[in-house]
């Protein structure tokens, strides 16, 4: 089989990165052509059509939170469709992550991927013989691989892996196979099976899909670290890359977390997911904390106060019931903070001081959480004892003040932790999930990447190698002429404005004065006031017979901008020469690389 139109990890990764940029269809097309030229040293001689998932009429796709871009490339000899599915971007995506990946309760975005691919094929009018390639990052890998039937292959970077609980709950054939294999009847029992056994079974069951999946994963990616816990299994051909050699990655740290702790969090996520699948996100939150936050929506002032007072007893009781199990999970983290942050310090992610302050304040937070739990318990016990939904203003105010004091303590601890700079420091973990760190580590001799831009490193000069952003150089060469042309137009506009605002305006003023002169000379009697104005009293016995205006109009001075306009125009012309000089300078740096000159030539033909 001949090579795909878009080939190479770098090209595909840069294309996935484009999906995150808020580009118009035209900008997307130009960027695709630009990247193709940079990567292949030739123009993409093909028709390109693009469809965004946000532009299709599907409530299902919109409601799922799925975002994707389909690109149809037709070179006449070859026709292919590429679908870039976007990873986690916004709150709906994060909620989906909890419901899909942690709880394993939904595949809506994967189903939406299917719908979008079918709509795109229809839109592009392509049949099933046209190859459809999935490109994905993060959450999108989970979506694209579940929707694998729609794709001929999937390429992913730092993907959220398939989850066998998610597939057990949504793929009825796999559900049957698991139940047969492990001999049980009710779905809930799956969570009690050995995760390792389930993992191995899923790997075998879905093994035939593996040859359609190519993944590049950073050893420092937090999702890679997380994929060691129950639920996840990694399919396909995997290329591991150490994108941040300064740290060892978090996988070992996560692997040390006992499975029952993960199971606890999974149960919490399942409660949230099941409730929110049935009644929406508010119902999910109600399941977790016991309070219907949706009921507060659109209420303010007295109406809000009235709602709280009317439901106060119910809310306190619900909080008292729901908070302890939730706090237990949080305490799992706080109680083990010394070990967790000790490992992060050992691995070089944080400093010793950051670890000490964080552990100290997490201990304080834990104490405040226990206090909150006890305050609520005391309050409810007292209500039960008095058999009265209201304990009286005094008691309630004391309860509220005690709760508020603990919340302030928690907030202050958060501020102290933040002050250490630990959150900023931990951002490097987030960076290791991103596409740019991955691209940066994809260097190939002369070529490397910064952000999504291609960098060439010159070794032809003496001393330090020189790095040139070749993407930026080509953009400069390509876009600077239109910019200079736009400046030329603005100089013409300025020239016209000078004529309008000064020359023409002066003529207008002259015309107005001339009109007034004509008026004065033709109706002198209307200007009797001039007699008194100039002291010719009495005026009642005098009659103006004529007025003669000895008009003098000087030509307008100081309106000559010729010198300035000339300089501005020269600057445009010298700009064109400057661009060519810059091109020559870069070509000189890479004189052994013949294709640099060619790239400059091609860039203006896109």
């Amino acid at each position, binding site marked *: 089989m001949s090579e795909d139109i878009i080939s190479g990890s770098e090209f595909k990764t840069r294309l996935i990165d484009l999906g995150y940029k808020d580009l118009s269809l035209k900008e997307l097309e130009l960027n695709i052509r630009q990247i193709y030229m940079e990567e292949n040293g030739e123009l993409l001689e093909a028709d390109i059509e693009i469809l965004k998932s946000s532009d299709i009429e599907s409530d299902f796709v919109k409601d799922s939170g799925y975002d994707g871009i389909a690109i149809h490339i037709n070179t006449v000899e070859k026709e292919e469709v590429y679908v870039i599915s976007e990873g986690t971007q916004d709150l709906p995506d994060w909620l989906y992550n909890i419901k899909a990946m942690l709880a394993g309760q939904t595949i809506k975005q994967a189903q939406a991927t299917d719908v979008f691919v079918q709509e795109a094929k229809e839109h592009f009018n392509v049949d099933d013989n046209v190859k459809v390639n999935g490109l994905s990052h993060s959450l999108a890998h989970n979506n694209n691989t579940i929707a694998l039937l729609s794709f001929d292959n999937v390429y992913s970077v730092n993907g959220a892996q398939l989850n066998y609980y998610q597939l057990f709950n949504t793929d009825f054939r796999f559900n049957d196979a698991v139940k047969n294999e492990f001999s049980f009847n009710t779905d809930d029992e799956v969570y009690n099976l050995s995760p390792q056994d389930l993992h191995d079974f899923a790997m075998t069951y879905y093994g035939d899909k593996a040859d359609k999946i190519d993944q590049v994963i950073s050893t420092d990616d937090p999702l890679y670290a997380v994929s060691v816990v129950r639920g996840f299994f990694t399919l396909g051909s995997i290329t591991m890359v150490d994108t941040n050699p300064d740290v060892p990655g978090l996988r070992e740290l996560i692997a040390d977390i006992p499975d029952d702790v993960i199971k606890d969090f999974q149960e919490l996520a399942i409660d949230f997911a099941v409730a929110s699948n049935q009644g929406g996100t508010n119902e999910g939150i109600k399941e977790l904390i016991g309070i219907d936050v949706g009921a507060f929506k659109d209420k303010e002032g007295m109406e809000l106060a009235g709602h709280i007072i009317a439901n106060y007893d119910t809310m306190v009781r619900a909080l008292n019931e729901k908070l302890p199990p939730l706090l237990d999970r949080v305490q799992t983290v706080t109680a083990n903070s010394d070990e967790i942050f000790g490992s992060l310090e050992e691995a070089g992610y944080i400093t010793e001081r950051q670890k000490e302050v964080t552990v100290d304040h997490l201990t304080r937070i834990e104490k405040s959480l226990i206090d909150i739990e006890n305050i609520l318990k005391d309050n409810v016990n007292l209500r039960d004892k008095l058999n009265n939904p209201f304990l009286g203003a005094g008691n309630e105010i004391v309860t509220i003040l005690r709760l508020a004091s603990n919340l302030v303590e928690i907030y202050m601890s958060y501020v102290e932790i933040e002050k250490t700079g630990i959150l900023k420091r931990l951002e490097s973990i987030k960076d290791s999930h991103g596409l740019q760190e991955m691209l940066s580590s994809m260097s190939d001799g002369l070529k490397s990447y910064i952000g999504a*831009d291609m960098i060439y490193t010159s070794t032809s000069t003496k001393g330090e190698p*020189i790095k040139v952003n070749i993407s930026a150089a080509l953009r400069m060469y390509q876009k600077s002429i239109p910019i*200079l042309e736009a400046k030329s137009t*603005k100089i013409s506009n*300025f020239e016209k404005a000078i004529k309008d605002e000064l020359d023409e305006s002066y003529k207008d003023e002259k015309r107005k004065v001339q009109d007034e002169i004509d008026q*004065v000379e033709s109706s002198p009697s209307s200007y009797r006031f001039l007699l008194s104005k100039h002291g010719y009293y009495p005026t009642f016995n*005098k009659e103006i017979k004529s007025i003669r205006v000895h008009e003098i109009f000087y030509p307008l001075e100081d309106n000559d901008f010729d010198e300035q306009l000339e300089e501005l125009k020269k600057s445009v012309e010298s700009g064109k020469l400057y661009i060519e000089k810059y091109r020559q300078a870069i070509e000189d740096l890479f004189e052994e690389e013949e294709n640099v000159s060619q790239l400059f030539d091609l860039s203006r033909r896109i």
Partner: protein
Amino acid sequence: MPQFTFSVTEQLIPNQDYTDKKKQLRTHVDNMRADDDEFYVLVNNIIVGEDQKGKIIDAMKKETTARKDHDESIYADVISKISKSVNSFNEQVADMKKQRLSITYEDKTE
């Protein structure tokens, strides 16, 4: 009846302030500057890192700085010229509105 003539300088039309024209004209300069800014953003992204040295790099950096400075001096000159021209326009129009008049009247009492 006798007629008499006297001459005066009279303001025929009320004066007006045209200072706003400076703003109108400067807008065009701002637009040109915006193009330059866009141009230099493209240029400045080419060399990776500020600390890179080398004969070719130094030459291009020097040329870019010289070019930017020159462009800036052109704009400064244009802005100054706009200010001078509009001030002068204001004065010249005000002068034009004042003209010398010969008024001839008839005195009916004589």
